[in-house]
């Protein structure tokens, strides 16, 4: 233990000790880029669905591509439901059910999201892409 160990900077008096050195600036730039990239990686669009699967009376009826904006009317058990695709999202625009829970479900975007109009027997589910969990138990 007689060896005083590596004396990195104390032994020889450094002529000037600038607060920030060249390597620091390089590291700062790299670190800022890395941290910026995490915003994109963790906050970016994840699990973006690719299409909406519309089922009528429990039978898969047809699929709507989410990248093509359009509005379709579907005949269900008690009337006509209107489903709208806009900007990669899908929603019930209107439905003949009393509660309008399906309409109030709002826009669906993430893979796995579901809106259902049970009285009319119509279910819209976003599929494709990376599926997010909808619940986790520990």
């Amino acid at each position, binding site marked *: 233990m007689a060896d005083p160990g590596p004396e990195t900077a104390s032994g020889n008096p450094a002529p000037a000790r600038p*607060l920030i050195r060249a390597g620091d600036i390089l*590291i700062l730039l790299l670190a800022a880029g890395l941290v910026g990239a995490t915003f994109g990686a963790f906050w970016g669009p994840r699990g973006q669905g690719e299409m909406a699967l519309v089922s009528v009376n429990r039978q898969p009826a047809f699929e709507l591509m989410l990248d093509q904006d359009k509005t379709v009317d579907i005949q269900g058990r008690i009337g006509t439901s209107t489903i709208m695709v806009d900007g990669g999202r899908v929603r019930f625009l209107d439905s003949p059910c009393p509660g309008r829970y399906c309409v109030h479900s709002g826009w669906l975007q993430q893979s796995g999201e579901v809106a259902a109009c049970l009285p009319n027997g119509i279910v819209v589910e976003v599929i494709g892409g990376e599926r997010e969990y909808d619940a986790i138990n520990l």
Partner: protein
Amino acid sequence: MSGTHREDRLVAGFAALAIAIHILEAAFPSPLPGIKPGLANVITLIVYLRHGLRLAIWVAGMRILVGSLLVGTFLSPTFLLSATGAVAAMLALTLVGTIGGRQVGAVGLSVVSALAHMSGQITVAYLLFIPHPALLKLVPVLLSASLTFGVVSGLIAASVLQILSRRAGEAE
């Protein structure tokens, strides 16, 4: 043997400083859980740059052990997170310090070790405590905070080192 005694005193003194800062910091409420300035690492940085890696590891180890005993988090999840962060920070510090040599000063080392500290903690927190994707949503916020505090700690350490070396110059 005199070298050993001198080193012991150095470690004890610096560790005491770091522990004091650690406890002062623990007393302040944090705006966000998981975020604190980590000013005690200023001491680790100063020790590393002036006296080398071995003493820095001693000082950081003492700070975590004694600091957690005094704050009351010894062997708790907090302690595990703290220790993991410190190990990750030390590894990063060693790596960058060895590669960068004299080109890298306190600010760069501080930023690297702060980011490594936070990344290590997030990894352990995610794997052991909260394996939920929502935790990952916090990653950008946590890393931004540690980047900011890393720069601040680094600047503090760099100015202290500047003052210390000026003192040493005057004494000679």
